[in-house]
């Protein structure tokens, strides 16, 4: 019984670490291309891939979304801090222009928040 309880507690710690403490690596967008920097994000199976994108400061850039998931939730992507929202066509590319941003983290997600990602500006 003690062992089972310990396993349970271990699981809880693992959940906390995995979902909250651990910071996944972000995909860096190089700024060599200047204002034409672009990254492709695939919307599929409940996640944005990549979901954590890091960008240089004060550079406008583009995210090309490719949505391969028919669920209606995946159909829109919102950047609440930037007042940006876009409808993503299914199985097609959609290019979203982001303005030049200041340092900080900008979350993006679908309507239900089932899909979520972050733009990290460094």
């Amino acid at each position, binding site marked *: *019984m003690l062992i*089972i*309880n310990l396993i*349970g507690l271990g*699981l*809880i710690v693992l*959940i*906390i670490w*995995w*979902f*909250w403490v*651990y910071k*996944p690596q972000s995909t860096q967008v190089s700024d060599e291309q200047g204002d034409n920097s672009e990254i492709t994000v695939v919307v*599929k*199976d*409940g*996640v944005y*891939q990549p*979901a954590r994108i890091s960008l240089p400061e004060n550079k406008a850039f583009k995210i090309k979304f490719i949505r391969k998931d*028919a*669920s*209606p*939730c995946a*159909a*829109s992507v*919102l950047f*609440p801090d930037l*007042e*940006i*929202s*876009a*409808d993503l*066509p*299914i199985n097609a590319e959609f290019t979203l222009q982001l303005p030049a941003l200041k340092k900080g983290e900008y979350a993006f997600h679908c*309507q*239900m*928040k*089932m*899909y*979520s990602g972050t733009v990290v500006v460094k």
Partner: protein
Amino acid sequence: MNKLTGDQLRNNTQDLIIEGAGCASCVGKIETALKNINGVESAEMNFALRTVSISGNVASEVLIKAVENIGYNAKSASDRSDDELIDEKEVADEKYYASLMKQMWVALALGMPLMIYSLFGGPMTVETPLERGVWLFVGVLCAAIMYFSGKHFYIGAWKSLLNHTANMDTLIALGTGTAWIYSMIVVLFPLALPEMARHVYFEATAMIIGLINLGLALEVKARGKTSEAIKRLIGLQAKTARVVRDKKEIDIAIEQVLLNDIVRVRPGEKVPVDGVVTQGNTSIDESMLTGEPMPVVKAEGDKIVAGTLNKSGSILFKATRVGKDTAIAQIINMVKRAQNSKPPIGRLADIISAYFVPVVMIISIVSALVWLNFGPDPVLAFAVVSATTVLIIACPCALGLATPMSVMVGVGKAAEAGVLIRNGEALQTASKVTAMILDKTGTITEGAPKVTDIIVADESYSEDFILTVAASIESGSEHPLAQAIVDSAIEQNIELENTTDFQAIAGHGVKAMLNGQQLLFGNQKLMLKHSIALNGYVNKAQALAYKAKTPMYLAIDNKLAAIIAVSDPIKSDSIAAIKRLQAIGIRVVMLTGDNRATANAVAKQVGITEVFAEVLPEDKSNKVADLQAQGEIVGMTGDGINDAPALALANVGFAIGTGTDVAIESADITLMRGSLHGLSDAIAVSKATLRNIKQNLFGAFIYNVAGIPFAAGILYPFFGLLLNPVVAGAAMAFSSLTVVSNANRLRLFKPQDH
């Protein structure tokens, strides 16, 4: 360079629309420039349509650059229109719905009989070898169904797990997975478990997967309806336009209309793009855009807007805004953006749902541990059931949908009534407005003053003569009242004469010479300054002022000749609209730069008791601040640039934008028609939307949060009850459906009739 095969080439034809190609000689130039690009096989221009078809494997950006380099504008013709996007979306939704329904039926085909069997007391236990064999078969069947009907949950759960995120898929996958794995352990190693715990839960797994697919399917259907308003707006746009090119009228797709094209609109047709009438006159029904039912007469020089309906005459007009620049396209764009933005009330739900899933996983573990430690026998079965049920019932999708769905419908509903709401925040604040400041000129009144009375004091002058003199002297002035006098003269075909020695005396009026006579035109102060006897005319002027008219004195050679009264008529429905605002308990205040007498007279007519008169433009925002200091949530309504600071400072700025010159980006809320009824409509819609959001959040909360303790078994110690995972699955599936359907109820909402 790679050689392309013929097949690849045929697949690589694209069309560009060329702007600025005015002559046939441009054709050769453009074709040559395009053919010179590496990879372009052929380029053929259709001059009449201003399109060029290019074959070759070259990115459209490269082609567009090349055309721009030789001095023309080009755009890709393959950019899909909103119309096509909506159609595509509907087709995709339909397919998705069908596949979800299929997955549902397959899962229920197994789940239903099993559940009925258990409901009628069929033993779900593993005792005999025969039972073991049967349940093993059912277990394998169940796995097949999990693969066929629930694959998307498991893949999604796995992907998001790797991504360090958890979502609805995670909970479903964990819940159904736990139930299945436990049941398989029972079947494969029955002896490892106490006899009482040898219970299988395959029916729960199958039913939950089936029900959630059903819930998703119904949600897809219901969601389609929430975007009806935007579909209607998009439907307003014409699909083709008849343009005059090379002296011929040809029908072309709306995307191909270029700036400055001359376009023909016949009676009964929709105006395809924004423009200015160049020939003919007609009346145009703008109700679809503004909600204003009366058709508007349009003649040469008048602006017309895409999406409106031509009623009577055939006209030619010059395209001034095309494609994404037309007012209707901008409105659609703005409504879409607003629909996807969230009011502050939704942020809480966002924060909750961001942490929700991992928290639920923890609760589920804790509840299993509690059952294991303190529960009655069979502890293991109870632990599994409670853990599964917690996972399933707590899915936060309804919570996530609660706000966006209502905002979507509410903003769309407002747009249908001619009210453009910029974002979710404006929507929420509008519902709380307690005081409304109305600018007088152009908001309560038409904003176009007219001459209403001419009282001749010296009988040797005729009214026409007086108007001629007044208009001649005022033709040099830029004052709006002066403009009214000049307009009246023009209306009566009076020819103006040249004045000399024109002199404007600030705060008084003007002074000039005409045909050797000295003219004075202005207020009482001007007359007193020049010691002109007014006799009984002061009272007559007073009487005019009480009727909200502005009297002006005209003296010729230092003798009073006439009083001319000018007034800015009150909009026909201002009184009713203001009554509506007051009826819902809003404190209505009038604000104007006009003199106190006129302001009070107007206020009295429309039923406003609080008036700020003689307010300088720069002080308007101070009045907003004053009311805010009194604890009011202030809405400010204005029409002009001079109102901008006050509009910005107010909690909600309402701009009166009429037709084409909609101040789309500047205000929180734009009323597309001139009527103040838009204010009450906007407030009513936002109140209804907020109420709807609260209902949704409450509903979602009940399902998700309040459901958890029941799922964990809080009722067991008292009533011996433990929630069935299947019930949890059904509750979860229908929670988001409830939210979407409740949001759809908003579609039926009607702002009060007027």
